[in-house]
């Protein structure tokens, strides 16, 4: 009784979601035609699907997607490692935080994607500038979340550990590090989607491989369906990265109470 009552809103939600998808796809397929929008402005679904098959066969779609995924993964991994490392470092050393915070703030305010052309000047049309933009863009949400977690930790918790004669390292590994996990994952989730943005901007600016490149290529050819295919693939890459983080998060933060998606707690 209780179970079905708490399940049905989820089911309703899923059904509504699926319904919306069908409506959206149908609108995409027939909407432009009905409204008289030319196919080079909004190509219908079937045309994009055909383009997908074509791009897969003749435009190395798989290669471009693979390269983008690799860059996203590399940028995300490096950026989050660096971000959490610096976050812990600053969190444990107030002096370092005071000394570095103005520069970090400046860097945080600067639009990271604007560095893309600069990195390409430095490193050429390789994968590195793309990865670097992603690193830079992923770095901040992760670092800020880790730092805030350490800043807002309950001092009584630290005192409890201290009262047991914990060493600095024990306090870090047994209290601070685990406490920082939930905010860190929140940062990683943001980072996962931002990594895609960073990589795409890098690819748009320069290079001849990756989904960002495919976008500009499609644009140059006035090949609207190809642009659409690229956008869809990029969304897919972002979604997979995001889901990957969520999956790991559920594993790591298994001890947290279930989040009630259905809203009736």
């Amino acid at each position: 009784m209780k179970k079905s009552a708490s399940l049905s809103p989820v089911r309703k939600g899923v059904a509504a979601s699926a319904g919306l998808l069908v409506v959206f796809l149908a609108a995409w397929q027939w909407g432009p035609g009905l409204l008289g929008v030319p196919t080079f402005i909004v190509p219908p679904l079937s045309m994009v699907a055909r383009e997908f098959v074509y791009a897969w066969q003749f435009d190395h779609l798989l290669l471009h997607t693979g390269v983008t995924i690799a860059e996203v993964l590399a940028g995300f991994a490096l950026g989050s490692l660096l971000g959490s490392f610096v976050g812990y470092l600053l969190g444990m050393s107030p002096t370092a935080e005071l000394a570095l915070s103005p520069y970090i703030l400046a860097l945080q305010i600067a639009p990271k994607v604007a560095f893309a052309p600069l990195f390409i000047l430095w490193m050429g049309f390789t994968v590195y500038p793309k990865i670097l933009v992603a690193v830079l863009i992923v770095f901040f949400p992760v670092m800020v979340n880790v730092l805030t977690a350490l800043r807002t930790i309950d001092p009584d918790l630290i005192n409890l550990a201290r009262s047991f004669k914990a060493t600095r390292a024990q306090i870090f590994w047994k209290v601070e590090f685990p406490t920082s996990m939930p905010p860190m994952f929140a940062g990683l989730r943001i980072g996962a989607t931002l990594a895609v943005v960073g990589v795409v901007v890098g690819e748009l600016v320069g290079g001849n491989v990756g989904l960002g490149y495919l976008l500009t290529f499609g644009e140059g050819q006035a090949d609207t369906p190809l642009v659409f295919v690229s956008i869809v693939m990029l969304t897919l890459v972002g979604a997979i990265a995001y889901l990957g983080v969520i999956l790991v998060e559920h594993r790591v933060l298994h001890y947290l109470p279930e989040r009630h998606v259905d809203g009736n707690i």
Partner: protein
Amino acid sequence: MLTPPVSSLTRLEYRAVTMRFVDRHGSGLTAVRDVSFSVRDGEVVSLIGPSGCGKSTLLNIGSGLTAPSEGVALVDGSPVAGPNAQVAFMLQKDLLLPWRTVTENVMFGIEIQRVPPVERKERARTLLEKFSLAEFSSHYPHQLSGGMRQRVALARTLAIDPHVLLLDEPFSAVDAQTRIVLQRDLARTLAEAQKTALLITHDLLEAVTLSDRVLVMSRRPGSIVDEIAIDMGQRDSPLARRADRKVNDYVARLMDRLDIAHASLDHEEAGGTE
């Protein structure tokens, strides 16, 4: 039942302890002034006093987390120079780690103190059984009620087998019924293990039913203004003490000493800003 014998050995002592804090504007604030008292082995002493009179400050000094401005705290005769394994504290907040199971939380202190794993598990198991928490040993804190969480915190405190327990309003956040159960468990445990304890509380009935002696503190700057011995026996059974009519006399005396009848809420103002 008999109240366990209290030996003459001094476990915890405060000698002329004064604590001054410097606030953000650089002006000083004397939280406690010239506090001296001692707690004998196996004795349970309660500390009562108005909010902000420096009770928690004294507890922090005893546990070695903060150093007094003047004077010294001694545990087993040696000055407290930092946290030490003889002393354990417990607060109103349970401070359980959400990523640790009940057992793992109980083992937190002994793990830090590098007690071998086998012994750790054994101690946790024994304590959890004693506090009827055995069936929850692999639960996470969020799955427990407030009273159960506080009992886990007590088990964690006892796990390191300290000589002295410093308890800062340990049960003030739980409901009245749970509190009575927790008080019973605590009193029994303290008596059985013959632990020495300093209990801070705002609950006068709790002070009377759980302790051998009650120390009354003045408003800030806090100092000890009175000491009342509770000569009721049965310190291991707060419920039995509750039933004793003498309890009311003691509570009335404490109220009188705290000047509660005449006190307005002006201690809030004296208590300073948080």
